């Protein structure tokens, strides 16, 4: 399930739904990315998505991860719009028969989201705004999977 959320979402409620009724896939790995205050240096994030394109691209990666890591289920929830410090930006959850595959899939999908998913992220701080592009570390991270 891929969802773009224009409003804040609650990772706990997402995880509860994702785990409910799961009697055969014993392993659920998940990740939540939260907007940091950076000690007051970041006052807000603005995340642009391209609705109608972003979901399809993310869905393609979720399908690839499902194949590669033998997943039973994937959940990706991603905020767009204005995001305040402390609000969740992204959640990925992967269910699999074995924990290693669930962890790897989750790690892989986060690397993808950080450096290749159709989002554009502007950090607004006391000194103005700047567009964030993938860091050197993000690019190293995603290269691990190629």
């Amino acid at each position, binding site marked *: 399930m891929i969802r773009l959320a224009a409003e804040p979402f609650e990772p706990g409620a997402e995880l509860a739904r994702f785990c409910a009724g799961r009697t055969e896939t014993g392993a659920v790995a998940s990740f939540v*990315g939260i907007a940091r205050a950076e000690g007051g240096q970041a006052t807000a994030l603005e*995340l*642009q998505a*391209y609705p*109608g*394109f972003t979901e*399809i691209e993310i869905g393609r990666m979720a399908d690839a991860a499902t194949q590669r890591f033998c997943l039973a289920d994937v959940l990706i929830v*991603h905020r767009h719009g204005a995001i305040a410090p402390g609000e969740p*930006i*992204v959640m990925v959850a992967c269910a699999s028969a074995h924990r290693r595959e669930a962890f790897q899939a989750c790690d892989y999908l*986060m690397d993808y*989201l*950080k*450096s*290749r*998913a*159709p*989002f*554009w*992220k*502007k950090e607004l701080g006391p000194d103005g705004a700047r*567009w*964030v*592009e*993938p860091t050197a570390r*993000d690019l190293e991270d995603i290269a691990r999977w190629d």
Partner: protein
Amino acid sequence: MRVLLFGRLGDLAGWRERPFDPPPATLAELKRRIAAEDATLGEALDGPGVQAAVDRALVRGEATLAGAAEVAFLPPMSGG
């Protein structure tokens, strides 16, 4: 035809969405028309890592725009 600019391209141009009528026949013609109005934006569209999507499908290099309803310019992406 609709043109969309994402991320820093929208800030640079001062717009995020604009109709282009009559529609250009190719991606190259669209870029030329944009550059004629706004040289800085025109240069940015050819900058490193900027991709184009025609009707929500990424295109590599040149592309015809016959019948296309929407072209989007996408600078380097970063979510999460």
